[in-house]
């Protein structure tokens, strides 16, 4: 009973926020509604016992993808009113695509293309444990290659975007820390007794205060 209640809560909020993503006028609100939709989808994953997928959805989609969207929306100068202009023109096409998707989902649910007998019972699988059991043993090879691919992505991004620009004053911490007093300071002995200079210095210090 309580599970059904939560299901309808999550599903309802998700549908509503999905709708708001499309219709809201401010693109920043759209992204925020998208994040809300992701959270509700994660909640539904928890309900069916796929807690690892739920965590992944929050970490990857909310933590990385949606924040990236937010950056893009806020930092790029995109004319959203113009993008929205063709809404009515594209509505039929969107409805057709959506209709096909609904049809396929219904067919998958009630059709016999997927035999439901082979489906494991979700509540019996502790999927985080299971993943942990095979990720570093059976699939260690693939895991290592994935690591190398991520390394390549990192090196590639850095080497393509980092460039030396001339005329930029950079901070060199090592050079700053290794400065010695003798190298950079010069003590100049001034003969005393010049009243004019003294007065000026005194006046300056008063002004500073």
């Amino acid at each position, binding site marked *: 009973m309580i599970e059904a209640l939560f299901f309808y809560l999550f599903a309802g909020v998700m549908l509503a926020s999905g709708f708001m993503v499309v219709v809201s006028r401010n693109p920043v609100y759209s992204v925020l509604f998208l994040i809300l939709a992701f959270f509700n989808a994660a909640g539904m994953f928890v309900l069916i016992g796929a807690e690892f997928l739920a965590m992944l959805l929050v970490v990857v989609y909310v933590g990385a993808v949606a924040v990236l969207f937010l950056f893009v929306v806020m930092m790029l100068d995109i004319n959203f009113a113009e993008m929205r202009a063709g809404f009515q023109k594209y509505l039929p096409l969107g409805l057709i695509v959506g209709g096909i998707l609904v049809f396929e989902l219904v067919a998958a649910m009630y059709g016999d293309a997927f035999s439901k007998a082979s489906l494991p019972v979700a509540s019996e699988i502790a999927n985080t444990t299971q993943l942990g059991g095979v990720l570093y043993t059976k699939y260690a090879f693939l895991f290592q290659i994935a690591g*190398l691919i991520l390394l*390549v992505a990192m090196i590639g991004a850095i080497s393509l975007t980092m460039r030396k620009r001339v005329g930029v004053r950079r901070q060199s911490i090592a050079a700053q820390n290794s400065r010695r007093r003798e190298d950079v300071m010069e003590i100049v002995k001034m003969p005393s007794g010049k009243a004019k200079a003294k007065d000026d210095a005194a006046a300056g210090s008063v002004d500073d205060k």
Partner: protein
Amino acid sequence: MIFDLADILPALPEMILATLALVLVLVAAYGGEGAKNARRVTRIALGGIVLALMLIWSGTAADETAFGGMFMADSFASYMKILVLLGTFGALYMSITPLAKDDINKPEFALLVVLALVGMMLMISANDLMSLYMAVELQSLPLYVVAAMRTNSLRSSEAGLKYFLLGALSSGMLLYGASLVYGFAGTTSFSGIAAAVSVDQLPVAFIVGMVFMVSGIAFKISAAPFHMWTPDVYEGSPSPVTALFAIAPKVAAMALMMRLTYGAFGAIEAEWSQVLIALSIASMAVGALGAIMQRDIKRMMAYSSIAHMGYALAGLAAGSHQGALGVMIYMTGYIFMGAGSFAIILLMRRDGQSATRIADLQGLSRTHPMLALGLMIMMFSMAGIPPLAGFFGKWYVFLAAVNAGLVPLAVVGVVMSVIGAFYYLRIIKIMYFEETDEPLDTDMPTANKMVLGVSIAVILLFFIGLSPLLEAANLAATALMTQL
């Protein structure tokens, strides 16, 4: 499931190179700026490649799998890996002395090449749909980056972006095909797929998946009609990168294609053979006809490599032991022709700027007689003039096609090869019978001399070394056909 040493030892060369890449990251980051460190990183990488080469050379010929059957080390893998390692060594060695003023001069280049090399070797050894995909990605990603390496050049950035987008598309096709194949075979391992294929009536969707996978790999070997990226990427990338593209990754992708068609889909030869015949004819035609119009020698080499892939696919389409053997002989000649040609193309520069128009070769026979002679040998070999390496490649490939009853394919191949001879001979005509007032620069680094010398020697003396080569290729083809 617990691994012991015997279970990971067959992958020792790959592990050594991967570890070396991690060391090179540190050397590249902390070794200081600029050309000197770039040279140091390249030298260490070359040392690692030699070590891996020696390990594979001295390795056992027995079939071994590692990592629970995901990694296959047999004599076919050894043969192809030696080719890939030799090709990468040549391309990397030639990048050690920056020639043109605008050449890439960063430590990251050699580092990314080593990582791509690991990917290529894993592709050759892939024995599972998952390791196949991961290896393809590991091979492709560093190559996208090095194509765009010259960040202040619009052309280079365009090449990198184009390569990346089309490569991503091909990855998508590969994955979609793999998902269908997995869905109907119920397993990702090649031996499991081969078992599932050979039983009974196959669903159409399985064939669709197979076609998608073959198309995805056809992108990587730039077989027509999936060749569109090749000329632009070859032209836009810095020349040392183009040299690498032309030599190594094609061999790895071709090995993967062989592994997939002969191994996993071995029982449905009739199905994939048609696809390969279509790819082969299209590639031969596009390569031969497209190259005629080119003014830039790098673009011409791109079309030439499309044509070469078409010829190799003709052998593959035969689906026989002889076909596999022919493709291996063809690829052996191909890497040496590519390395030799690019040793000369890298030298084509005027006042320190690279000059890669075909017209820049005018009068080369007067100003650089040895270079002209070398390029002539390369062009004759590519055109398939006996007794050079290119001839034997074509001979074995077309022989396999004829013996498999694909006579029309072989006829088309011979006709296209005659058309292709036109543009190879045109280069020789430009070098020997046209005059110029502006000669190319004269200095010639040792690296290019060495690579050119070795390539010429191999191509000229190919017929002497043919019998041991055939023996090795025969062993490798047998391993490929019987592994499952």
